[in-house]
């Protein structure tokens, strides 16, 4: 749809043509061959028509985006179009003149018009070129507005995902079970109970702190995971085993905060907790060829009783990746027998957390 073909815009556009038409009227009568009135009689209807003809520049401008076409081709095509359109316009002028010339009031108009015709052609050429230029301006304005809207949408999505992630972060189950463990420890081993309180405090503080940032270093996320695992280790004892293979290089990479914590929490909740004998969680990270690859893997019982809120954590991580990286990041889930594996791949960005 042409951007000017709405009621308000078309009115303004036609209004803009009034001074242009006035200039053409002056130019045409300047040579003294045509009177001011004759010039206006010819030019005004022609300009009204031409205003609409010039709208067609939109389509040529649109099919020939300024970036992406060679300048030569661009100029060539538009010059040719301008020449054709203005020649056609001049032809219309001749038709009108011939028509007017038939009336007694404008005897011999065609003879007087002839020397002015090239001026009409030139004016048409310039007007069309002006239309092309204005349409390019409109196009680029539209593109930038669309880009802005898209950016805004991405931002909103990201914020939304972040908020949901944070809300899900402090999992009530985890919190209440940890408190129950502390309650048990107070009479068994009070110093361990205190240790657990400190761990839980650290974990909550880190969660809140990281949640306020937009990007954190992988090493910071690993610190949080360490606290989290230490707490769960108190709950599950020997049932919970952890193995980390973290490449040193990967630790400086930046990633959205609290991206991995839900994955590891899932591994505990749906994996380890579903197995009477427990199991192992393996976390591996590697930076290679500008990509950061992270794998969280755990044993699980495929026939385990369904746990509440299953899958929401994964979905959340996926949405956050999408919001942040678009198609440049991926999350894959692989379940093979008693192994549950989540693989993330995202662009390896370095820098300070912020």
């Amino acid at each position, binding site marked *: 749809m042409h951007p000017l073909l709405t009621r308000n815009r078309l009115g303004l556009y036609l209004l803009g043509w009034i001074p242009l038409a006035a200039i053409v009227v002056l130019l045409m009568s300047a040579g003294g061959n045509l009177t001011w009135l004759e010039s206006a009689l010819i030019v005004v209807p022609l300009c009204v028509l031409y205003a609409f003809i010039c709208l067609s520049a939109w389509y040529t401008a649109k099919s020939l985006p300024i970036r992406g076409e060679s300048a030569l081709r661009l100029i060539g095509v538009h010059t040719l179009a301008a020449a054709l359109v203005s020649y056609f316009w001049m032809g219309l002028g001749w038709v009108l003149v011939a028509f007017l010339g038939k009336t007694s009031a404008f005897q011999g108009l065609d003879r007087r018009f002839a020397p002015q015709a090239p001026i009409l052609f030139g004016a048409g050429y310039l007007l069309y070129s002006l239309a092309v230029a204005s349409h390019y301006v409109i196009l680029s304005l539209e593109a930038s507005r669309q880009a802005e809207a898209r950016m805004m949408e991405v931002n909103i999505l990201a914020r939304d995902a972040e908020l949901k992630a944070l809300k899900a972060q402090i999992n*009530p*189950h985890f919190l*209440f*079970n940890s*408190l*129950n*463990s*502390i*309650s*048990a*420890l107070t*009479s*068994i081993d009070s110093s361990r109970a205190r240790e657990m309180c400190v761990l839980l405090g650290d974990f909550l503080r880190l969660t809140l702190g990281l949640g306020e940032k937009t990007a954190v270093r992988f090493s910071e996320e690993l610190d949080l995971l360490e606290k989290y695992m230490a707490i769960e280790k*108190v*709950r*599950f*004892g020997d049932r919970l085993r952890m193995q980390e293979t973290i490449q040193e290089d990967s630790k400086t990479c930046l990633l959205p905060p609290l991206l991995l914590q839900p994955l590891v929490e899932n591994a505990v909740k749906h994996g380890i*907790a*579903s*197995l*009477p004998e427990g199991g192992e969680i393996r976390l591996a990270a590697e930076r290679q060829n500008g990509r950061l690859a992270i794998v969280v893997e755990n044993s699980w*019982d495929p*026939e*385990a*009783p*369904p*746990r*509440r809120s299953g899958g929401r954590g994964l979905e959340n991580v996926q949405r956050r990746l999408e919001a942040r990286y678009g198609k440049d990041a991926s999350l894959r889930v692989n379940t093979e027998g008693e192994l549950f594996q989540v693989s993330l791949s995202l662009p390896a960005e370095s820098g300070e957390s912020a």
Partner: protein
Amino acid sequence: MSHSPDKRWKALIVDDEELARHVIREFLESHPEIAVAAECANGMEALKAVAEHKPNLIFLDVQMPKLTGFDVLELIGTDVPVIFVTAYDQYAMRAFDVHAVDYLLKPIGRERFDAAVERAKGRLGEKMPSAQELAAAARPPQQFLERLVVKDGTRVTLIPVAKLDYAEAQDDYVALATQGKKHLKQQTIAGLEAGLNPDNFVRIHRSYIVNLERVVRIEPYGKDSRLAILGDGTRLPVSRAGYARLKALLDERK
């Protein structure tokens, strides 16, 4: 565990976390009339311990590996007072409230614990509400059974719902047909139907529920009824109302 004559109560503690069991054990120390008969780390152990010790009070964690607390209750029957223990599960909590079942929230407080024990003692001889009803009430809305738990003698079988071919009512039981075998479960067919996803399972007859995936074709049979032919050749009767339900579902799938 000691069995001094004044300990008239035998309790079972079922929780997969050692520390969680410890809290209950510790609280029970101030109830000298209650002896801890056994501690179990999962539902299977609990079933064995129930058979062995015949406890008259069970502390039962809801979230456990293999069998949930609801599964355990379903399998041990409803003669023993059970006090459920859970960290946080809004639907389970509501179900317990509705069915007046005692439950403790982690972290467990001493007062609440004592009150629950006293109430449980007063309830000896009273039956617990049906485990299936309780479990159904504890399921979040729009969530359906994912597996069925069946006990054949001492053996517990877990049947993933996707592997259920059909179910047939037999008096107070339903026969669950899966992979060529049949398992009897004490449940009404209506109760089972309520727990199954209506997009996949249809009540084709007063006595039959079928897994839609298994139906190969429908054949006319007699005046008003039809037969559903399953992939393995099984022929199940389809009533007129059942056919209407089946057809509506199949049309929906197209």
